[in-house]
């Protein structure tokens, strides 16, 4: 029962954090400076999220040569092809190859 309470509370909190500005700022005008700064949210969060995904729960960052090469390859393929599937295949092949070579 306590577990279910925790789940419901987290669900409500998560929804609230996603909805608060969308619902509250429904009709308000945004100052142009804010709108321009908001454009940096996606690059900043995505940059931080990529690193966070390579981090274990106890805070160790797992970035070796295979990871770096895989991500560099992902960036290059995504930039030139703008295609998620090509990006995924190319980066995983680079990552698996380097890792199996023991680099």
């Amino acid at each position, binding site marked *: 029962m*306590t577990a279910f309470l925790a789940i419901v509370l987290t669900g409500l909190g998560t929804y609230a954090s996603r909805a608060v500005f969308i619902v509250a700022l429904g009709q308000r005008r945004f100052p142009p400076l804010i709108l321009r700064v908001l454009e940096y949210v996606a690059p900043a969060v995505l*940059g931080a999220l990529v690193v966070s995904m390579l981090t274990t729960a106890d805070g160790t960052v797992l970035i070796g040569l295979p990871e770096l090469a895989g991500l560099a390859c992902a*960036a290059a393929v995504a930039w030139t092809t703008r295609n998620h599937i090509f990006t995924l295949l190319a980066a995983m092949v680079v990552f698996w190859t380097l890792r199996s070579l023991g680099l």
Partner: protein
Amino acid sequence: MMTKGRGRRVQCRAMTKTLTHIRRGIADTLPLFVPVVPFALVFGVVVGESGIAPWLGWSTSPIIFGGAAQITLLSLLGEGASVAAAVTAALIVGARHLLYSVTMAPRFQNQPRWFRWVGPYMLIDQVFALSMLRQEDDPHAFRVYFLSTGLCFWSLWLFFTAVGLFIGPLVPSQWGLVFAAPVLFTALLVMALNSWDKLAVALLAGGVTVLFSELPNRTGLLVGALLGIAMGLLLELRRSRS
């Protein structure tokens, strides 16, 4: 008769357009879901180890609908943390949604009220990143695209977390399939870059996250993201002054 026929033709064209947006939404969702599959299996392992009833653990998928927050909450509850501590940690992990909410708010202003209430439920990382790439769409196209990516992710996540409960404990972690997640988020990042300033902000945010990676509950992610945005603010302030 003439006008009726033309009306139907216009309606038909609108339908075709809507279908195009739905198809594009689903096509963009599927590759992004690939790395979510091992994540759903990890979820299954966590539920199994937490000692919480599987159906109760799975109920976090529709109730919370946020993988990182779900896994944090269940693993902490399993470790015997108090409700307050586990919920706080899970909400800190999910705090980046506040940023998504601010960022998306302008795009929701010219939307119907029901969508302003329903849309946020599906505002997960991937839906945010994908719909940010559709800034130029008209309100209707934006709404259809957002809902189709959101619902597609939602149904796949509910299905695969259920599957994960059964096979999560069986998949070898040496496959390294989890690496697909940072790869696809790098792709999303690169596609969102259209200036050197944004690249600098992304690198700063990532670097700071590494520096603060030992903070508990992945707070480093928030610190990195916030410092990145602060740098964006400084860059824009300097630009508007000159």
